């Protein structure tokens, strides 16, 4: 009897769990473990030779000035992207939760860049930055736009931020709107009866009550921009002179062009650690500000 039951249970497990657990194990678990192992070897793609070298790859990562400077470049890019995208998203969402006319259409409109993948988005902005803006700059004598923003490291940095934030704004807006609809109307009403100004209402009521939405938005924008690849590839292709390579771009090059799998994987692990530490710290710090309504 017992044997029969366990046979039936095994059957249920295999039928209901089999395909997804098999795929999950083969695609996530095994590559993750092999990946960790890989960081401790000097595996060579061409010969297939491999031996354990301890922390050699990680030492290499921290000795690699190029990677470190690109990680620093990525950090700056993430910081500005997160701040800009969240500030815009916050205020657009605020303007779109008053129950005014046509709000649904406006929300739909601001969300549209999210339908587009990073490659298409990157080329769209590449066309604007390399052709349209220089045209304007030359026609009206605006120095800022006379040469393409993509030919200079400093301006290409901002081009990357603008293109990324442009897409993120609509996505974050949706989450902020969901957060604002959770702010009870009577609290807002009471505040306005007490004569609180618009600024005071935002600062003292809306902000503290929407901390969960803010935490989610910062978390999403942080991890998304830390891992940017497509926009980087299509917009600047790492140029001029590899000066705008974000971390993922560098890792892809290291692994699949220079064939340094071990070092590339060690860099990916370091990148993951950096993202995880920053994302968790912000959640922890911001959650302390949370207020129950």
């Amino acid at each position, binding site marked *: 009897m017992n044997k029969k039951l366990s046979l039936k249970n095994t059957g249920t497990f295999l039928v209901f769990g089999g*395909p997804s657990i098999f795929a*999950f194990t*083969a695609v996530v678990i095994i590559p993750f473990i092999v990946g960790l192992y890989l960081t401790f070897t000097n595996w060579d793609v061409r010969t297939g030779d491999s031996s354990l070298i301890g922390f050699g790859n990680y030492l290499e990562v921290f000795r690699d000035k190029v990677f470190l400077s690109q990680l620093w470049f990525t950090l700056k890019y993430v910081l500005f992207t997160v701040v800009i995208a969240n500030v815009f998203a916050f205020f657009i969402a605020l303007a779109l939760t008053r129950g005014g006319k*046509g709000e649904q259409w*406006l*929300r739909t409109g601001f969300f*549209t860049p999210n339908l587009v993948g990073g490659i*298409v988005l990157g080329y769209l902005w590449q066309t604007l930055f390399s052709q349209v803006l220089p045209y304007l700059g030359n026609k009206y004598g605006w120095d800022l736009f006379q040469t393409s923003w993509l030919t200079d490291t400093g301006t290409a940095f901002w081009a990357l931020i603008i293109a990324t934030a442009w897409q993120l704004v609509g996505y974050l807006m949706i989450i902020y709107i969901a957060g604002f609809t959770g702010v009870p109307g009577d609290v807002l009403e009471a505040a306005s009866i007490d004569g609180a100004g618009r600024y005071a209402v935002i600062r003292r009521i809306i902000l503290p009550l929407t901390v969960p939405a803010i935490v989610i938005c910062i978390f999403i924008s942080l991890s998304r921009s830390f891992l940017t690849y497509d926009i980087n590839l299509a917009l600047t292709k790492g140029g001029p002179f590899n000066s705008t390579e974000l971390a993922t771009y560098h890792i892809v090059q290291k*692994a699949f062009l220079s064939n340094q799998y071990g070092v590339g994987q060690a860099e990916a692990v370091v990148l993951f650690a950096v993202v995880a530490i920053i994302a968790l710290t912000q959640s922890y710090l911001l959650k302390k500000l949370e207020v129950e309504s």
Partner: protein
Amino acid sequence: MKGNQRILSGLKTGSLYLLLLAFLTPFLLIIMNSFKTTQQFFESPLSLPTTINFKNYASAFENMDFMQGFMNSLIITGISVFVIIIFSAMTGYLFVRYKWKVNAILFFLMLASMALPFQVLMIPMVMLYGNMGLLNTKLTLLFMYLGFGVPFGVFTFHGFIKGIPYELEESAFIEGSSTLRTFFSIVLPLLKPVFVTLLVLDVLWIWNDYLLPSLVLLSPDQKTLPLSTYTFFSSYSVDYAPLMAGLIMTIIPVLVIYLFLQKQIIKGITEGALK
């Protein structure tokens, strides 16, 4: 007073529409210029096209193998999303209704794995699947999307199925229905709201994904739409007019779906993010 307020709110709405217009200018400029010749685009990128000319579209359609990319994307997105949703629902059900230790461990592993970025897995993945000679087929890519899509799918279904009372299934079991049949005839129809959320999120993810297919699909005839856009741009980067037409063509399929399903899409995004 009333009239003043109405004017004020009208002004606010008006300025929001202006802001939206400015926000969408990049799209509008590309659409406008996709109807001009490259020469006209260089000379006056801001003017409206004088004629509506679809020549760029025809040339982009041909040169980027649009149909092939489109079909590949359609097959890969369609099958992966379908498979992810069905298998995640089944596994979510298994994890909720059968409280075995192995299920708890697997569920925990799936939750934990959601924090892992693709970047940490891509190198060993290419290495392993490359060694087995499994790269460059759609089937491998479908399998990978299943593996990557399952954790979030299981997590979402798990949360939903927990709230379904067991009595419904119990009475079916008493009448002698098998687990599989009970699941498909009683539980699955109740999961509709979750389908929408997952459908939206997974379609947007897989349709637009570039990095994973770029590592797996190497031959030209396998390319998905983002891959053919990339090839098209890197090989024709001076002839801007057809390039812009190509971009617009890539955007149109998703845009059409968005116009019909915008409510569900916004709902799906909200629910996906707040989970």
